[in-house]
């Protein structure tokens, strides 16, 4: 589908079916099953997964378009997990995509699941914490490593795992998934050909794109509110202090957008997600999430912290998403190690990353 047509379609669908009230209603265990059905019928979750692998086809650009809109609309569904992440892992292992909402494990760096083989079966053991959506997913797609260091991907029914429910800042499921010698018997499973930090990178970029969408909507809300709220006989947007908040919001979002767009451009295929550009994007969005959420709440005054006003549906997601698939600190450590271990000098390292070519329109505040 043409990119701007897809943008219009998802914008309409999410505006109509996933208004802020929907995000609020799905908090505290209220899984938006009807919304999932709508989104699944439109083949959005499995976009980007090749049709041969049971996906909806389409390009990575389609995936970014959908995720940016999902972030913008605070859509309370595991869209990134189902297609890009789970579908991507399964396709890379030569397996068919699995339908229904999916959670992927592990998520946090340093966590690893173990695969053990004995004469009769292969079993997965271990624990994954802070897994988005596990308690409402139909399936858990997990990657596990065996003693020989080989990685296997497996799609398991949720019931096969032990889930301890948790909740994110946004009231979305963020669960602990425990695998106690879970048998792979009958479950789709196959070796994963690529390095397992590719999941981390793809996840980081997906969440950076989600954050960018949310950041852009937060910016719109702040500008709109400041233009409408009158105090001392004029809109508060006339006051320099407020204008400077808005200008700094615009600045931080412009920087995040530039970094995300570069990472999207540099990720032509998820077989080779580029470490540097993705880390920069995740960090830029995480930094922006902090500063922009704080300033937006400041501009909004008390109404901005109410449940009724939509700002919280976005800022709470920003606070949660910045920690998912790598915190800024974790990604900064990766970049720092690259720089400190490089044989070349820092400028050679930094300037050898792909600077954005002239493929997308010059973006400024309008984005």
């Amino acid at each position: 589908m043409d990119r701007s047509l897809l943008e219009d379609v998802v914008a309409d669908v999410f505006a109509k079916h996933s208004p802020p009230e929907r995000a609020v209603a799905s908090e505290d265990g209220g899984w938006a099953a009807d919304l999932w059905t709508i989104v699944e019928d439109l083949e959005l979750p499995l976009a980007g997964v090749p049709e041969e692998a049971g996906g909806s086809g389409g390009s990575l650009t389609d995936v970014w378009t959908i995720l940016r809109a999902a972030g913008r609309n605070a859509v309370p569904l595991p869209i990134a997990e189902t297609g890009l992440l789970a579908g991507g892992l399964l396709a890379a292992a030569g397996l068919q995509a699995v339908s229904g909402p999916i959670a992927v494990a592990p998520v946090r760096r340093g966590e690893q699941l173990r695969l053990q083989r004995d004469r009769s079966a292969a079993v997965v053991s271990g624990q994954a914490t802070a897994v988005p959506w596990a308690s409402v997913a139909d399936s858990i797609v997990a990657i596990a490593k065996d003693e020989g260091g080989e990685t296997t991907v497996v799609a398991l029914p949720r019931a096969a795992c032990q889930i301890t429910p948790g909740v994110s800042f946004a009231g979305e499921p963020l669960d602990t998934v425990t695998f106690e010698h879970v048998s792979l018997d009958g479950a789709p499973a196959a070796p994963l050909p690529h390095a397992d930090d590719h999941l981390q990178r793809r996840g980081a970029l997906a969440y950076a794109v989600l954050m960018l969408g949310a950041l852009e909507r937060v910016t719109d809300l702040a500008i709109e509110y400041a233009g409408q709220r009158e105090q001392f006989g004029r809109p508060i947007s006339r006051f320099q202090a407020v204008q400077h908040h808005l200008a700094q919001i615009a600045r931080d979002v412009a920087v995040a957008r530039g970094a995300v767009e570069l990472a999207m451009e540099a990720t032509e295929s998820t077989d080779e997600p580029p470490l540097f550009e993705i880390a920069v994007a995740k960090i830029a969005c995480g930094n922006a999430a902090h500063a922009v959420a704080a300033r937006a709440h400041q501009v909004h005054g008390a109404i901005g912290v109410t449940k009724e006003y939509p700002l919280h549906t976005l800022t709470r997601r920003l606070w949660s998403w910045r920690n998912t698939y790598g915190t800024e600190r974790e990604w900064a450590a990766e970049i720092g190690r690259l720089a400190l271990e490089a044989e070349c000098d820092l400028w050679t390292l930094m300037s050898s990353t792909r600077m954005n070519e002239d493929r997308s329109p010059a973006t400024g505040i309008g984005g």
Partner: protein
Amino acid sequence: MIHDPPRPADLVKLRQEVRAFLADRRRSGDYQPQVDAMQRFSREFSLDLAKQGWVGMTLPTRYGGAGRTAVERFAVAEELIAAGAPVAAHWIAERQVGPMLMKHGTEGQRGRFLPGIARGEVVFSIGMSEPSSGSDLASVRTRAKPTDSGWLLNGQKIWTSYAESADFAMVLCRTSEGDDRHGGLSQLIVDLRSPGITIRPIPAMSGAGHFCEVFFDDAFVPDDCLVGEAGAGWRQVVQELSFERSGPDRYLSTFPLLAAWVESSKGSTDPYLAVQVGEVVAELSAVRTLAVRVAQAIDRGVDFAVDAALQKDAGTVLEQRLVEVLRRAGVSSHDPAPLGNLFYQATLAAPHFTLRGGTTEVLRGIVGRQVTGR
């Protein structure tokens, strides 16, 4: 001038050529990497650079330029500033005067000034600020009274970098009175060696930059030195400021310091150091993406004033913070050269980053008014 974007492979090759040139000039002692390279003046270096075809790159070949894109110019500019090379002698002329003459200059003016700019021979200063007119630039009082064949200029400019060494200044002045204070302003190219012009240096704490005051006392400026339209000076200077605000010196002025810190830290196994390095490198890389956008916008011929303001705000604030981050990571002026020296330079240079070329407060006002539709 709308340009086709250069191919990535060609940009890589161009950068490598500039790097090889710079490495060679460092080896022969022609320059040492410094913080705030935009303020380091060397006529010899500018001439040398021009001989490679890297000054006036975006000027048309018929004026001695290379007819290349803003993106290519940007690539060269980044290499120079990151390397801390002394670019001050040609920087202003090349960055803003050249493009302004292409936009508004007469054929005679272009023929007269552009070839010298492209050869790195002609040094321009910026004649904008006055003692009573800094952020409020429209309040300038320097007056140009019309005479027979030109104007008599009276007034004063301040913060005029390198006026003592410069050949010309692009002076914003009042050529007529109007109701609206933005009206009646014009831009004149003034030969700084004309009679009636006194130039006094103003020492700055950083030791770089060579600020000056320039006094005009019935200084004669010929008719053919009016740039663009009489009375259109405000609109023109706003455009010129877009060129001035953007650029790698707005986020790479402290890069030699950052590079020296990383280099001297190699081999460290301190995990927190890796985080500190990574945070700074990541932020810098993110800000860079905005600068590329501005260069692309220049090539496309679209308005980039707001993008330039965003980029300058982000870059200059980051640079100031970078110096403090390094200090808290343990860098000091007692570290062995070059790190210690660069840290010393950066500490003294830092306050000016968010002032020159438009204060952060003014830039945020521009952006704020844009987003609120005022």
